[in-house]
């Protein structure tokens, strides 16, 4: 078995890249929201992802018996990312809704 056999598993590199992207989402969202004033704050995204994901999983497992399965991990990761980035998502959607008539006009 070579090193390459060990690396490329499941859906291969695409899954690795997409999984890594999703894994970083809650951490980057947390850095964006909580680390105001910290220079290059997005660099702390991986630490924050590795912080909030296991803590949430442990709390849910102990509190509600939620299992640590791949499906639940994906759900927790995306849910946390949305929850933490909520103010920015709301602001972005407001921005788009307010400008939608102008955007639609421009697209015509």
């Amino acid at each position, binding site marked *: *078995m070579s*090193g390459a056999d060990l690396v490329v598993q499941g859906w291969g590199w695409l899954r690795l890249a997409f999984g890594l992207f999703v894994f970083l989402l809650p951490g980057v969202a947390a850095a964006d929201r909580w680390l*105001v004033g910290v220079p290059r704050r997005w660099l702390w995204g991986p630490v924050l992802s590795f912080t909030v994901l296991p803590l949430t999983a442990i709390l849910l497992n102990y509190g509600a018996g939620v299992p640590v399965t791949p499906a639940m991990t994906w759900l927790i990761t995306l849910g946390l990312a949305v929850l933490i980035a909520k103010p920015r998502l709301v602001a972005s959607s407001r921005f788009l809704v307010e400008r939608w008539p102008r955007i639609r006009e421009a697209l015509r």
Partner: protein
Amino acid sequence: MKAPARTVRQATFPWQGLGLLVVLPFLVVAHSLPHLPGARAETPFDVVHGMASRGKAYLLGNDVPYPVHVDEHFHIARFAQIERTGDVRIDDPYTGEPEAGSLFSVSGMRSERGWQVAMVQFHQLTGVSFPTMAHFLPALWAGYLGLCMWALLRPAPGALAAAAFTVILPTTLRFLGVGFLVPSAFALPWILAVIAVCAWGRGGGRLVALASLITGGFFMHLVPGTVALVAGLVTAVLRPGTWLQRAGLVGAILLPLVWIAPAIAADAEAAVASEHDLPFVATVFLGAGTIVLLLAVAGAAWAFLRPGPESVAPRVFLVLALLACVSLAWSIAADHRNEATYSRLVPAFFLCLAGLAGTGVGMGLALLRRIPVRPALAVPVAACGIVVAGLLSGAALLPPLQLHFVEPYYRVFDDRAWAAATAFEASEAGPDDVFLSHPWRAPVLNALTGAKPWTALLPGGPPERGGDFEFYVASGGADAAWFKERGITYVVVPLEPNAPHVEVAVGVYRIL
């Protein structure tokens, strides 16, 4: 009108980004050394030549693709148990017995369950196998640690040098080290993150971040979590600001103790009082090298002579290094072989040294920057300064790099052993079976199948029932009564058993 002279600072600006492109891959290759076979480095030339040849081997994939450290095997067995059961509260994968103590206790936190859950989640999201994570993640994380150091110190001079100096963290010191997938090394960025948030953060969000990071740090590993808490308190005191702001930070840092302290209070004293059998390695302090220590002293002097926002992190490093030194020295003087007061503090101590030594290099460059030079000479002088700083840093890094090269590693699996392990995984072996294998390979074989190992090496002690494995080999395969007495149903050893059996694959036998 005469144009103002360009300062060296302006002339050196582009070197920062280019420097990161050199420093981060250097850190990755240096901390990949456990996976890179090669001769020992005896002279400085051997170190330079060895790094180059091993870096080439790493890029070409001619390294060891298997987990190499006994702690990695131990944790992989637990990752697999969490993955298999989907539960954080796992039974001991070797015996099937419930783990001793609640997760919310010192003994529970010492099981490093938060880190194990984090690794399982990373595996579930990315699809990367546990052995592959053990192969690549430590080195990549070492590069990330350097990046964190740079991001933390960046406004201060020497941030790039400090990032490079994180290579002085030993790869192993009594079963610990950055080059391995183990939580005590993995949790080091939490210390830097807490300092960064305390020093630079604004608004209420930083309090949420601090409470999360401290709690997360404790669940990653108890000792780096404690160091992160102390680092946060020291930063809150040393950072510029009003006392009200400081009180808010201290409150946020101590808040996690509301849910952590009651859980650990009962057995905290016992944990600090407990001792292990492993000897002290006092010489490890010299592993950083004389130049690094001198640079660290210079950096510490600069930090305290130039108080300001830029020098907050170096001053925190100095206080932490002194506190760690006191604890380490006391442990050695009192012959107190404890993980909390000695073993696990060493990486944090070296992290502080790296930050201070980098600041020392930056101090020299800052002095150089003050020299006004003619416009025509600005670039050559800047280039000379960078070259001198690079040579000084290179000379400083040779002794710790040499230490990386001479460390004994534990390459437990080779291609043949891994083929047997894969065949064992594909067999019908399951949690109801008991297998005999080399004690060092047992944890990964357990992770692959869930079968219970008869002999296994647990970190920090001799193998469990190691004598039985030695007897099996010495007797040329034992006999049927011997297997029946122990309930062994599989043998994963390249030696045929002297009992009725079926050969599942080369080196894998099912006892009938």
